[in-house]
């Protein structure tokens, strides 16, 4: 989107340079789904750098035993802020931003169903994020205790009780996540409504791009699982401000109830974050294998299955609190069940590549990295789903390694794949190939160096969230490797940032359809005009642009 969205495309008269204040005003007041999408992604990337730096400080602290770069209190704040930021201020805005940008374009609509609600959702998220980081200067409150939140990203009771968390740091955590949660719910209702009510003529549900299908399921999941967190946070606010007893064990309240409420949200949230990654891979892998997706109906069914089963597995985060044997068994089996639809997806992506003419472009490289690394994440996930195994390794670095393989090895790689894939559409410029390859290989190396050894650290007994450790545990080498990996990851992210900035200025012009792709967003200009499509498209198959380019052999004859 150029700042002159009103100018008709094709009119080559260069408009006069618009003053900066007017351009900023345009961005601040916009209700255009593409601009809001870009703002979501850009602010998500800013928070990504902040949370990455927090992780870097933690890794430096853990480089050697009895290190004292940061005191234990600061370490607690660092892992709390890192986790909260990465989930709520990096993962959520980037997936919602990409959904914002892509869903209307892919279904041939001119905007989301409720554009102003969309803007509200974005600003709620952004100011929620600002609120979280304001705690660093405002968290003291009147009591002179604490600055940033230090209760961990899942904020277990009774740590969050008034007696144990004095001052206002926990209140900032609650309010920030609550406000951002309302924004996510609003945007999800918007996406659901858009998919149901705004599809272009001919796009029946079984002709929707898989990206749209998966985001449709994700939006439903947010609608169903975000409110439990909001409700629990409202209860916690009542506890902290009005003296209610929800999580006050001395008055008969239950600390375990908080754990249930949190993970009823917290586990589906993992799928909320991961499915958009699957969604991007499901668009990129077919285009770069020059074959339609293998098993489209099974992909949709697997997505729905992950969404449904994923909402019934939350207590596998709680095997160590002492649930009944029946509870443990149920949640262990439900968790293992999720591996089936996920495996179906992996095999469908492999089936798509099988016999295809694979092009190893940047988006495809990141998808391939994702396939390998996500497989490891899935395998350790099934291991942790076995309750007795979990008793041994719960709250150890094995768990840390597992979920970073999910969220970095899986999600972040597919998000980078998606950003490289749709960068030409959003900016009109091609991303630089050389720097992109540096980005990929440095990230693969750094990521696996950092998180691979953490599996071993966990098995050797290193608990997560400790600020330091004794020298006689045999943990030094693995911690050193882990910290060294961070340097490669930072270099990789620098390559990405430089690549984006350089490509924006001097990248090759992309044209409408640089990847020779098949979905509707590639039928309009790059970047698309404010109204997306001059006339609403009409589709007859899952690959409308294939039909267009190959009138002699269109898909709709076979679907």
């Amino acid at each position, binding site marked *: 989107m150029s700042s002159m969205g009103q100018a008709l495309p094709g009119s080559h008269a260069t408009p006069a340079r618009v003053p900066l204040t007017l351009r900023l005003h345009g961005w601040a007041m916009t209700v255009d789904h593409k601009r809001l999408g870009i703002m979501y992604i850009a602010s998500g990337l800013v928070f990504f750098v902040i949370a990455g730096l927090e992780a870097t400080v933690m890794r430096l602290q853990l480089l050697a035993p009895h290190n004292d770069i940061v005191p234990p209190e600061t370490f607690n704040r660092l892992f709390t802020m890192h986790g909260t930021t990465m989930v709520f201020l990096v993962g959520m805005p980037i997936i919602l931003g990409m959904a914002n940008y892509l869903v209307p374009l892919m279904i041939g609509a001119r905007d989301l169903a409720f554009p102003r609600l969309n803007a509200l959702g974005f600003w709620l998220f952004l100011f929620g994020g600002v609120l979280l980081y304001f705690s660093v200067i405002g968290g003291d409150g009147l009591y002179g205790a604490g600055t940033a939140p230090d209760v961990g990203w899942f904020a277990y009771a009774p740590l969050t009780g008034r007696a144990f968390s004095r001052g206002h740091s926990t209140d900032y955590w609650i309010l920030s996540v609550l406000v951002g949660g309302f924004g996510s719910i609003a945007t999800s209702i918007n996406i659901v409504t858009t998919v149901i009510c705004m599809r272009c003529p001919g796009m029946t549900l079984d002709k929707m791009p898989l990206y749209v299908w998966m985001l449709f399921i994700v939006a439903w999941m947010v609608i169903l699982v975000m409110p439990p967190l909001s409700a629990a946070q409202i209860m916690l606010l009542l506890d902290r401000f009005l003296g209610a007893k*929800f999580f006050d064990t001395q008055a008969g309240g239950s600390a375990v109830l908080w754990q249930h409420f949190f993970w009823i949200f917290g586990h589906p949230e993992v799928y909320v974050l991961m499915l958009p990654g699957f969604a991007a891979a499901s668009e990129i892998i077919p285009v770069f294998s020059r074959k339609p997706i293998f098993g489209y109906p099974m992909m949709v069914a697997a997505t729905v299955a992950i969404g449904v089963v994923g909402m019934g597995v939350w207590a596998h985060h709680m095997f160590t609190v002492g649930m009944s044997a029946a509870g443990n068994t149920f949640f262990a089996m439900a968790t293992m069940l999720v591996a089936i639809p996920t495996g179906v997806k992996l095999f469908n992506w492999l089936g798509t590549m099988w016999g295809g003419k694979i092009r190893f472009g940047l988006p495809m490289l990141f998808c391939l990295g994702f396939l390998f690394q996500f497989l490891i994440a899935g395998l350790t996930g099934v291991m942790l789903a076995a309750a007795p195994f979990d008793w041994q390794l719960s709250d150890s670095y094995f768990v840390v390694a597992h979920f970073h393989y999910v969220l970095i090895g899986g999600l972040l790689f597919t998000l980078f794949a998606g950003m490289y894939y749709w960068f030409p559409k959003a900016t009109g410029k091609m991303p630089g190939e050389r720097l992109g390859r540096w980005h990929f290989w440095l990230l693969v190396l750094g990521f696996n160096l950092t998180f691979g050894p953490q599996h071993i650290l966990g098995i050797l007994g290193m608990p997560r969230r400790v600020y330091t450790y004794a020298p006689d545990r045999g943990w030094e080498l693995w911690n050193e490797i882990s910290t060294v990996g961070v340097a490669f990851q930072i270099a990789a992210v620098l390559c990405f940032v430089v690549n984006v900035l350089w490509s924006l200025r001097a990248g090759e012009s992309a044209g409408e359809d640089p990847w020779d792709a098949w979905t509707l967003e590639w039928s309009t200009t790059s970047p698309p005009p404010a109204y997306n499509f001059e006339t609403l498209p009409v589709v007859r198959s899952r690959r409308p642009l294939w039909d267009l380019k190959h009138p002699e052999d269109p898909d709709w004859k076979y679907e």
Partner: protein
Amino acid sequence: MSQTAATLPEQHIEWTLPSRGRVGMCGLIVTESALFAIFVVAYLFYIGKSLIGPYPPEVLELPVLATICLLSSSGTIMVAERALGQGRVGTFGLWWAVTIGLGVFFLGATAVEWYELIYQHGLTIATNLFGTTFYSLVGFHAFHVTVGLIMLTIVLVLTMRGAVGAEAAERIEVLGFYWHFVDAVWVVVFTVVYVIGR
């Protein structure tokens, strides 16, 4: 630009999709249901777990009249909607005002109930688990009634200024969805708090 439409004009497709307002409101209702579900679960989980009194059987009275009022307001709002659909704006305004009156009566009854609980029985949100879960669940519902009443009142003011006609029938119906939802939630709250929990 978009060549897709230009090259596939030969087929004409019958294409109607649901209205955005209805779907959006249904989404809101689903998400609100999830929110209430957690408060209801907390209430059920803590029944009989208060360490000190007062306990529900000692202090809770069945709010029969208030319940009848709130549930019948679902009927009056439907009568109002039907009148608007037929273009009878005056009748619409009348039944709309009756709906608001019934809602206000319900809120008033809640206020009286809470006043007695607080000042005669000494039950506040900080007294025990019963107080905590009771005031949060019933209060959360009352909050939704209040929001609904504000929206209904805005429509009433607009109607009196002549700004609401038959063309607004669908929007009014969408607002009606919300009001029905608030009533339906009360059926659950009533059952949980005054029947099961007493």
